[in-house]
């Protein structure tokens, strides 16, 4: 079984991460309840004829994917694997609303064609003329992890030398407001709903300062009582005792389910630095892809953004980190990285 390394990591988020990395992070305002991504100049990456048809998520995904490939010096990946919780909700809303408005008489083609969940993977492949394996996973808050697991397995069993893996979600215009309306105002998510795209190139050949993707574990359901045993089993499987973990990246979103993170953090000694990121990028089904971007970036650059760090001053160098995410007590994921 081959090792799997992360050659590049790129993120479009509610912060300036696409242009400036983690350098200019600031907390998101809690009002309004949704926050758009900070969008780069897409026409620098996408031809105008294609760009004019693309909804926000497609632009984010194609651009982040393209830059991730550029940063890894890869022209054609052996596989393109995408994870998205909501898919192209913006175009879905557009064509469904058009059907209602036009009394089911007229269906305009563009929004309909681009409303499918696999549009981003397809557009990346079309741009590259890449006929390799192309798959999109849609599994709620485990969508990105499912894509990442697919990429990891392909590299490990030598089915692919390089894999482009991405997680993305767009806010859309309407549906997210209904989600916000039904959110429990007392115990629900307090960080704004948001959008973003984080893309990675995986490969089997070790490069200088390459971060290794060691393992992924996912659980659809997990009780609070089982968190500790799950973490301990995960660490044991990967021969990493708790004291060897330098950074723990957690997906707190302000809901009553944040106590899962408290329980997870209790498995580690004080020397393990804890980071929280959703106060800066918001919540969406594939927000954990930003967690991975954060994990890769901090191991590569050895730079801990103070805005994300909680607890004691961390020890350096940082060599091993775990990213833990869950959504409303479901869809738990653990990702292990090492330098």
């Amino acid at each position, binding site marked *: 079984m081959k090792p799997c390394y992360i050659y590049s990591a790129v993120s479009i988020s509610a912060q300036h991460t696409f242009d400036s990395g983690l350098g200019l992070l600031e907390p998101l305002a809690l009002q309004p309840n949704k926050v758009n991504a900070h969008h780069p100049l897409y026409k620098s990456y996408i031809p*105008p*004829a294609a760009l*004019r*048809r693309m909804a926000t998520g497609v632009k984010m995904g194609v651009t982040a994917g393209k830059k991730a490939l550029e940063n890894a010096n890869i022209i054609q990946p052996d596989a393109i694997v995408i994870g998205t919780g909501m898919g192209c909700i913006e175009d879905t809303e557009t064509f469904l609303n058009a059907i209602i408005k036009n009394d089911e008489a*007229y*269906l*305009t*083609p563009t929004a309909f*064609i681009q409303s499918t969940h696999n549009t981003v993977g397809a557009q990346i492949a079309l741009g590259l003329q890449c006929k390799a394996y192309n798959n999109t996973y849609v599994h709620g808050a485990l969508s990105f992890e499912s894509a990442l697991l697919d990429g990891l397995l392909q590299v490990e069993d030598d089915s692919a030398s390089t894999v482009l893996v991405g997680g993305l979600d767009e806010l859309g215009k309407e549906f997210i407001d209904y989600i916000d309306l039904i959110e429990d105002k007392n115990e629900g998510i307090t960080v704004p709903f948001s959008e973003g795209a984080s893309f990675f190139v995986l490969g089997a050949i070790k490069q200088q300062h390459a971060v290794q993707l060691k393992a992924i574990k996912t659980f659809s359901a997990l009780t609070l009582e089982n968190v500790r045993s799950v973490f301990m089993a995960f660490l044991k499987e990967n021969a990493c005792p708790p004291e060897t973990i330098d950074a723990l990246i957690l997906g707190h979103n302000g809901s009553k389910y944040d106590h899962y993170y408290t329980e997870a953090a209790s498995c580690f000694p004080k020397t393990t630095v804890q980071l929280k990121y959703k106060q800066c990028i918001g919540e969406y089904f594939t927000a954990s892809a930003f967690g991975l971007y954060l994990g890769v970036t901090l191991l590569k650059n050895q730079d801990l953004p103070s805005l994300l760090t909680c607890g004691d001053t961390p020890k350096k160098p940082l060599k091993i980190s775990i990213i833990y995410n869950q959504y409303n007590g479901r869809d738990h994921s653990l990702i292990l990285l090492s330098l």
Partner: protein
Amino acid sequence: MSNLKQELKENIIELLNLEEFSVEDINDNDALFGDGLGLDSIDALELMVMLDKDYGIKLTDPKEGKEIFQSIAVLAEYIEKNRTK
């Protein structure tokens, strides 16, 4: 007729997200497809839906579309003659 041409230019820019173009950039006799505005077959479908929805014109023969969508001037003339709303 000039009002209709203006309306068509505005609608096409909005419908097809031609962000690079303004109404002034489109001449009445510019080719809509190919070297002109650079529209393609998906845009042709959008225009056919627009003709049906806004002017009550149903195009059933694709060859007919090729003739009608030559330019704003040709399209406006066709609409003027055939519109039902």
